[in-house]
């Protein structure tokens, strides 16, 4: 499609037509254009191209800073105290410093996904074919990469076409990161605009990664009926030699499955995964199983069930090697980004590496070739497993009781616990022989192991907790629908109308990590609540796994109870972290397929459309990482509000709307050009919820959009009011801001609401054709 750098120099050239002397022709790039859609206004936007749009968002959703740390210690001027109205030695104030840290986090997140994509694309091009056609959904998908088309303005047809977009992303992250250097950007709003830019390129990076792996590795292609896979401690038959893969970047795990297949060993060795690699390997092979989310690393390694551990990249515990050594399980590191101090054995003969690992001469090896990882991992595990005999460092019950009797209840463990779990109390009970309170903690434990480090007696508290809950844990097996990938164009066409008109009250995306204050069950509960209410529930990453870990009275998980289609009442797992752009892509496709808005390099208009019309909300209930930060910011720029759990306030700033300031909530009516008040819809762009109840009410509320028809608004209000009444036992106090005319009032609550409106001196408002962009005001033809 695209060729770079053509340079022709001709000293003298005579033809019938003319004479050319010293002709130099230099073309930066030749692009063969097969795409009929004309280029939109903002192809490959630079860091300031969409700044005007960002400022529109930031003016309404003002950054609200929650400093996690009052000083700046990034340069040797510092530490600088930034409290109050103080400025640091470089002149920066608190707001700018906080937004600068947010930008740093988002750059880290974006760089991680983009580097992940870069690695995948290069690996796949080398191993398979540069010209492999991209295919995410066969006939059912025309728009293969909505985010990339929207941002870059390119239509990628083959694997190699993705390189242009990748290069663009890499360049942007470098620019953005440079802005965080001392003495660069000084305005917090400009930092925030750059945060949004980082989020946007992050979405491109993720989309490329998933597009490449779906197309080349044959993952489910936009399949609502993607197969169900087993998940949990008991998902695999661990009496067999067991390989545990942890991380996000799937090629080394694919290497393992391929080697097993080639050698006819499939079924003789179990391959289990934790975190997104688990998602992606189950998208690749039905033989792989899932252990659980990111938070299950320590408990699984210590249980000794894995005979060999392969780590790739992202969200892997830095002490994975240390912990693995304790249970005598060799470790293979397979990513240049996570070498764990191990010797690089990529070029060594496999037999040598295998024998070193089997004999325990080395605790692990760095192997930077996925196929070789496959060979070494399988051959090693076959020999190691019998020797290890599932050696575990989880203590016996008697040992726990004995140690517990020596516990002084100093409370250091509880203080160290991010979720303030009552470990001392549980230890007290354990001292008396009752391990149940410790077992209860396991359900909510996020597996960080900080209690271990905090204990002055050096008790392996996390292992105590695991042991206490082990009996249940070892029995548990759940069903999760594997990542289906993109949303079909046809599905979008079916639900586009009901969503834009508000009859499907919203699209709720439950995404992100597993740093939950009260365990993953809350995520399952929230998902089910909204599926029952006929919202469309989409999910990905660790949240998608956590919500599989609850069964109803018939023993079914929500994936067995709700359809996997992008339709009212569906619960869809799109896949791993890098699958998140399918969710953004669905919103984009509603605007482009359904409403025929031009997609190509037309970011501002599409984002304006989504903000004003598509009732989509993200909930990252356990968001932990920098990647989660950049994923969220990619959604903000597109006009999709995001809610985070209680830990989310540690991201240092929220983007909050002020419903009490009327001026903030005006839009243009595209049909008349007048400015109209539309109420706080949606009220926030980024906010934290302290409890699941608060989150649920917020989700329902943030689905309202200025464009809702009366029927749609009535439905959305019903859910908002119903949840508010059920969870807070009172009517919300802001109903009058969301009722535009009498037809908006939920019909079963008419009398009640009319009285409230009267009290609030409510006045009827119109329903405009809303936009924040004056250039989109329609001109009446022939005037």
């Amino acid at each position, binding site marked *: 499609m695209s060729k770079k750098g053509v340079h022709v120099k001709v000293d003298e050239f005579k033809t019938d037509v003319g004479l050319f002397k010293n002709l130099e022709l230099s073309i*930066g790039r030749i692009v063969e254009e097969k795409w009929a859609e004309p280029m939109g206004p903002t192809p490959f936007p630079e860091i300031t191209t969409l700044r005007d749009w960002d400022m529109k968002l930031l003016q309404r959703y003002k950054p609200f800073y929650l400093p996690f740390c009052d000083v700046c210690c990034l340069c040797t001027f510092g530490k600088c105290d930034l409290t109050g109205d103080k400025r640091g030695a470089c002149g920066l104030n608190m707001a700018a410093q906080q937004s600068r840290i947010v930008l740093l986090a988002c750059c880290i997140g974006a760089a991680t996904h983009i580097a992940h994509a870069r690695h995948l694309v290069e690996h796949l091009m080398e191993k398979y074919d540069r010209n492999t056609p991209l295919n995410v959904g066969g006939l059912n998908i025309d728009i293969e990469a909505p985010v990339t088309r929207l941002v870059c303005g390119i239509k990628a047809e083959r694997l190699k076409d993705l390189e242009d977009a990748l290069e663009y992303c890499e360049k942007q992250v470098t620019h953005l990161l440079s802005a965080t250097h001392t003495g660069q950007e000084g305005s917090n709003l400009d930092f925030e605009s750059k945060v949004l830019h980082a989020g946007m390129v992050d979405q491109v990076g993720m989309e490329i990664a998933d597009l490449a792996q779906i197309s080349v590795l044959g993952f489910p292609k936009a399949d609502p009926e993607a197969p169900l896979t087993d998940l949990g401690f008991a998902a695999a038959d661990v009496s067999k030699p067991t390989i545990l893969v942890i991380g996000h970047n799937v090629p080394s795990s694919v290497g393992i499955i391929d080697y097993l297949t080639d050698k006819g060993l499939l079924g003789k060795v179990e391959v289990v995964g934790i975190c997104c690699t688990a998602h992606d390997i189950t998208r690749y092979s039905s033989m792989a199983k899932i252990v659980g989310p990111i938070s299950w690393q320590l408990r699984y390694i210590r249980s000794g069930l894995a005979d060999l551990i392969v780590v790739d990249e992202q969200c892997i515990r830095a002490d994975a090697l240390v912990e693995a050594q304790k249970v005598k399980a060799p470790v293979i590191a397979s990513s240049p980004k996570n070498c764990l101090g191990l010797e690089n054995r990529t070029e060594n003969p496999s037999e040598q590496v295998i024998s070193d690992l089997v004999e325990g001469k080395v605790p692990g090896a760095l192997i930077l070739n996925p196929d070789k990882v496959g060979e070494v991992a399988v051959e090693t595990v076959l020999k190691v497993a019998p020797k290890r005999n599932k050696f575990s460092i989880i203590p016996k019950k008697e040992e726990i009781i004995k140690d517990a009797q020596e516990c002084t209840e100093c409370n250091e463990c509880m203080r160290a616990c991010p979720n303030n779990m009552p470990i001392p109390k549980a230890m007290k009970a354990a001292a008396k022989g009752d391990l149940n309170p410790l077992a209860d903690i396991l359900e909510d434990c996020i597996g960080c192991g900080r209690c271990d480090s905090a204990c002055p007696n050096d008790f392996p508290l996390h292992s105590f907790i695991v042991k206490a809950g082990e009996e249940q844990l070892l029995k548990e097996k759940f069903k999760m629908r594997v990542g289906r990938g993109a949303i079909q164009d046809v599905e979008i066409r079916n639900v586009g109308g009901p969503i834009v008109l508000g009859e499907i009250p919203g699209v709720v995306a439950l995404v992100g990590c597993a740093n939950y204050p009260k365990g993953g069950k809350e995520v399952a509960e929230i998902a089910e609540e909204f599926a029952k209410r006929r919202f469309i529930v989409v999910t990905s990453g660790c949240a998608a796994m956590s919500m599989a870990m609850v069964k109803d009275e018939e023993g079914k998980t929500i994936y067995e109870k709700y359809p996997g289609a992008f339709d009212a009442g569906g619960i869809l797992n799109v896949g791993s972290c890098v699958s998140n752009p399918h969710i953004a892509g669905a919103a984009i496709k509603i605007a482009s397929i359904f409403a025929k808005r031009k997609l190509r390099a037309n970011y501002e208009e599409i984002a304006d459309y989504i903000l004003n019309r598509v009732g989509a909300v993200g909930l990252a209930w356990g968001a932990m990482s920098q990647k989660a930060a950049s994923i969220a910011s990619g959604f903000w720029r597109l006009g999709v509000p995001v809610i985070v759990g209680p830990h989310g306030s540690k991201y240092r700033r929220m983007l909050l709307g002020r419903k009490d300031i009327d001026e903030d909530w005006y839009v243009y009516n595209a049909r008349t050009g007048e400015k109209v008040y539309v109420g706080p819809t949606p009220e926030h762009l980024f906010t934290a919820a302290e409890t699941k109840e608060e989150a649920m009410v917020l989700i329902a509320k943030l689905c309202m959009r200025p464009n809702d028809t009366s029927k749609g608004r009535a439905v959305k209000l019903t859910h908002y009011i119903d949840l508010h009444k059920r969870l807070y036992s009172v009517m919300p106090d802001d109903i009058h801001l969301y009722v535009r005319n009498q037809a908006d009032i*939920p019909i079963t609550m008419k009398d009640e609401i009319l009285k409230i409106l009267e009290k609030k001196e409510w006045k009827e408002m119109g329903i405009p054709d809303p936009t924040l962009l004056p250039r989109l005001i329609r001109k009446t033809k022939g005037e």
Partner: protein
Amino acid sequence: MSMFEDIPVDVGVIYEGERIRRNDMHIELGGPDIKEKFELARVKKPEEIEDGKITIVRPDLKDMQEGKSYSFGILIEVAGPQLEPELEGVVERRIHAYCNFIEGFMHLNQRYDIWMRLSKKSFQKGLNSFEYIGKVLHRLFKSELPIIEKMQVTFFTDPEKVKPLYNEALGIYEARDARARGLKDEEVDRFYGCALCQSFAPTHVCVITPQRYSNCGAISWFDGRAAASIDPKGPVFAIEKGELVDAEKGEFSGVNEAVKKKSLGEITRVWLYTSFGYPHTSCGCFEGVAFYIPEVDGFGIVHRGYKEASVNGLAFSTIADSTAGGRQVDGFHGLSIEYMRSPKFLQADGGWKRVVWLPKEVKERVKDFIPAELVDKIATEENAKTVDDLKAFLKEHNHPVVEHWKEAAVVIAEATPTETREEAPAVPVITASTLPLTAGGFKIILKDAKIYAKKVIIHSEKTEKKGESIAKK
């Protein structure tokens, strides 16, 4: 105070999608095990109705045996100065929605096919009499449809009483359908317009006539009539038909004016019964698309639920994409399934005589409305998967379009591509026309010339699809 304070269970839109499984049900009304069941709305004179009266022709819910299915009929009688018998169907269809708002009370299907269940939970909460159901319906109907001034509800569960009424109801449905299907565009002065879809297709205006359902298949002329009178500020509005400009193509001066106004001048003329020239615009939620196949000079039809590629190799989504968004695109026509049952269906283009292919599923649904002599001549995916297959099939079955094939060949030769594409290609850095190196008769000398381009975009040349302009004639 809530409207339903005195009802033992909750009432709200959120219960609309609630399904009650057999294990959870207290009793069942109607459904597959019961032959005689019905729901019926009738418009009466005010003096015939006692507002708010609820009658139960027993047994009542509390007297029914758990786990059993019962004969059932519900009769809603309404009166009001604006209510006309034409609106009975509109009122009747709301029974479904309103019953489903009741927690633990499920209503499926309609008319003589209804199937309701009461959940054990709601029964235990005290929903043990039709009295409550009647009250909910009465309040919802009166608050939502202010044109209803008086309303009374009667529940029948005595099989002896249900039976005669069931037979009577069947007669009423039949008469109503016959009247509705028999009503012609020529017989009314008013059509209805719907601008609901403008939020995603800003220039789209649906024109709903007695013989042309809305594109989405959800709004008939009667529905439009009811909606416009109930909610005059709503998205559905009356269109005075005005003068008949072209009976064959379906052009009316009033329609043109209304559409021009509502589309902000974008669309100025609409021909209701054709897919060419000034076809009706397509929104985004049409049930199917008729698409012209130039190779055979006929129409294919593909509906939303069809997952394979259509006979022209394109999937529904691709075809839909070429017409959606409130545009008038020659040869592409978003439509409802019901419109295919209308005698006005693509009338100016030859109607069913011009239809050559459609998915089997749709064919089955509209079979009774396809002229008998044509049924077997129209291919489905079982007969043709490609245009070549289709050609062979049509020839073999002597489909009426085959006769036009020779004629059409001549037209193709004459047709000149006059249409300009709405999307101009991006301006390239250098084109042959701006740098006429090849111009005959000139000699060009370039000395020390440097041409630098950051990027050169090469467009592959597009060949005009000639077929699109054929049938305009």
